[in-house]
C-alpha cells in the first residue's frame, strides 16, 4: 500500500463534499460566529489603536494590519475546523472509520479534512476581505490575488492541526496547542507590527512559522511593493505547505489504520 500524498486520489473530494453538505445545512451557525473575531480586530486594532498610530511603514495603520487580520481569519478558521472539528468526527462520531471501510483511504480522509479546513478559512477570510474593502484599505488590483494566499495559509495551518489531531490521545491536549502555538503565532508573525521589532532569536522563530511569510506576501500585494524577500518567502510558504501536508496525511494513515 503506498503512503503519503502520492497515494491520494481524487476520491478525497467525496469526503470534502460530505463536509460541505453538512456545513451548508448549518451555515448560519458557522458563518457569523467566525466573523466575530476578525471584525473585533478591525475595530480594536485598526480603528481603536490605529487612531493613536499615525502611520506604520509609511501607510495608515489599518492598511498595514489588513493582511494580518486576513491571515489570522484564515488560519484560525482552518485551525478550529481541523482540531475540534476533525477530532470530533474522528473520535466522538467514528465517521472516519465508516469512510475508510470504503475504497476511500485514510490518506484521502486526511487530505479531505485539510482541504475542507482550508476551504472554511477561505470563506471566512474572503468575507473579511469584503468588510475591509468597505473601509477603503485596498487600492491595488493585486489584492485580487489575496484569496489564493489566504487559502494556502489556511491549508498550511489545517495540515499542522491535522498532525496534532491525529496524534493526541485526548482532546485536552488542544489547550497546549492553542496556548503554545496558535495564539503566539497570531501575534508573532508580523500581523500587527513588523517583526523587525523583535530580538534576533524571536525573529528567527517568527520566520519559521509559515504565517509570517504568508502575511508578508499579502502585504506586498495590498501595498503593491515588490521586494526580493518575496522569493524566499514564497518558497517557504509553498515548501512548508507541501511538507506539512505530507506529514499530516501520513500521520492520519498511522492513526486510522493500525
Amino acid at each position, binding site marked *: *500500500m503506498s503512503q503519503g500524498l502520492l497515494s491520494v486520489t481524487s*476520491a478525497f473530494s*467525496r*469526503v470534502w*463534499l*460530505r463536509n460541505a*453538505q*453538512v456545513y451548508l445545512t448549518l451555515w448560519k451557525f458557522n458563518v457569523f460566529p467566525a466573523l466575530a473575531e476578525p471584525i473585533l480586530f478591525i475595530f480594536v486594532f485598526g480603528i481603536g489603536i490605529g487612531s493613536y498610530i499615525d502611520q506604520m511603514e509609511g501607510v495608515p495603520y489599518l492598511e498595514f494590519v489588513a493582511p494580518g487580520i486576513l491571515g489570522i481569519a484564515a488560519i484560525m478558521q482552518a485551525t478550529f475546523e481541523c482540531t475540534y472539528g476533525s477530532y470530533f468526527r474522528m473520535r466522538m*462520531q*467514528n*465517521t472516519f*472509520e*465508516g*469512510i*475508510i*471501510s*470504503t*475504497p*476511500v*483511504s485514510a490518506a484521502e480522509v486526511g487530505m479531505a479534512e485539510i482541504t475542507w479546513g482550508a476551504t472554511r478559512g477561505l470563506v471566512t477570510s474572503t468575507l473579511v476581505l469584503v468588510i475591509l474593502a468597505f473601509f477603503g484599505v485596498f487600492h491595488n488590483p493585486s489584492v485580487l490575488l489575496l484569496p489564493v494566499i489566504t487559502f494556502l495559509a489556511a491549508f498550511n495551518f489545517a495540515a499542522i492541526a491535522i498532525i496534532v489531531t491525529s496524534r493526541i490521545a485526548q482532546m485536552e491536549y488542544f489547550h497546549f496547542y492553542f496556548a503554545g502555538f496558535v495564539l503566539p503565532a497570531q501575534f508573532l508573525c508580523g500581523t500587527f507590527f513588523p517583526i523587525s521589532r523583535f530580538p534576533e532569536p524571536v525573529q528567527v522563530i517568527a520566520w519559521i512559522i509559515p504565517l509570517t511569510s504568508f502575511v508578508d506576501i499579502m502585504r506586498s500585494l495590498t501595498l503593491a511593493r515588490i521586494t526580493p524577500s518575496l522569493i524566499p518567502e514564497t518558497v517557504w510558504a509553498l515548501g512548508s505547505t507541501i511538507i506539512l501536508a505530507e506529514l499530516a496525511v501520513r500521520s492520519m494513515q498511522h492513526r*486510522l*489504520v*493500525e
Partner: protein
Amino acid sequence: MIVEAKSLHKRFHDVVAVESLDLAVERGSCYGLVGPNGAGKTTTMRMIYCLNRPTSGTLSVFGLDVLKEPRRIKARLGVVPQDNNLDPDLSTCRNLEVYARYFGINRADAGSRCHDLLDFMQLRDRADSPMPALSGGMKRRLVIARALVNNPELLILDEPTTGLDPQVRHLIWDRLLDLKEQGVTLMLTTHYMEEAQKLCDRVLVMDHARAVAEGSPTELIREHVSPYVLELRADRSLNAHITSRFGHMEFQSSGQNLYFYGGSPDEFDDLLAAYPQTERLLRPSSLEDVFLKLTGRELRL
C-alpha cells in the same frame, strides 16, 4: 476461496490479539466467528476489511493481498462494524447516499439504490429521520443497509444483532439468508450460539487469540459434546451430593447449575429418579454447550 488466512498474527504493542490463525471462507457460504470477549474476533474482521494491518502471516480477500490492494478489496465488500458508525450529521437517506458516493456510485444510481435498501431493511418510513431519532434496532438495520450500497460480494458483520429485540433479530436473520441465497458470502461474529447455528455453514471458535475448533455446527456438536444435556439447578450442598454420587458421568458445574452429558436420554434415568424435586431440563446439546466446553465457564476479565 473468498477469504484465506495463513498463520495470521496481529499484535498491538504488547497485546497479542490474533495468533497463528488459519481460515478459509468459501464463496457463497456463511462463516461464523465465535469466542469470549477479547478473543480476537473483531481484530480478525478488521484485518479482512483492511482497517488493521496483520503483523505477520498472509491474508487474502478475493485473492488480493490485504496489505497491497486494500482499495480494490474494500470496493467489493460491505462492513457492519461492532459499534455503529453512522454519520450523525446526516439523515437516514443521506447517510446511504453519502456512503454510496464514497464508492464512486453516481447520484442517480445511489438514489434508487437507497430507496431499495430502505425497503429491504424496512426503514422506508424513517428515510428523513435525523440519526439521533432512530432507535438502536433502526440504527443497526441502517448500518446493514449501508453495507449493501455497493452490492458487495462479501458482507462482514461484527455482532450484527447484539442488543436487539427478537423481532429485529428475526428480520435481520431473514435478510441475511435472502442475501446468502443471492450468492453473497457472509462472515459474522456473534455471541448468540443460536444465531451461529441458524445462519452459519461453518463456525470457528476462537479463544485467547487462537482458533480452538472449526467445523459445521453439527460437526462441532458431534465432535465436542455428547448429544444430550441434563441441566440441574440446586443449592451448593445438594450439588455436592449429586456430584459425589454421579461423578462417574461426564459433567460440568457452574454456580448453582450442573450440566450432565449423555449419549441418549435414558442414560439420565437414575439421576432423575434420585432427585425428583430438583429443577431440571433435559435437551439435545447445542453449539452453546460446545462453546462453553471449549472456552470454559469462567468470566473473562
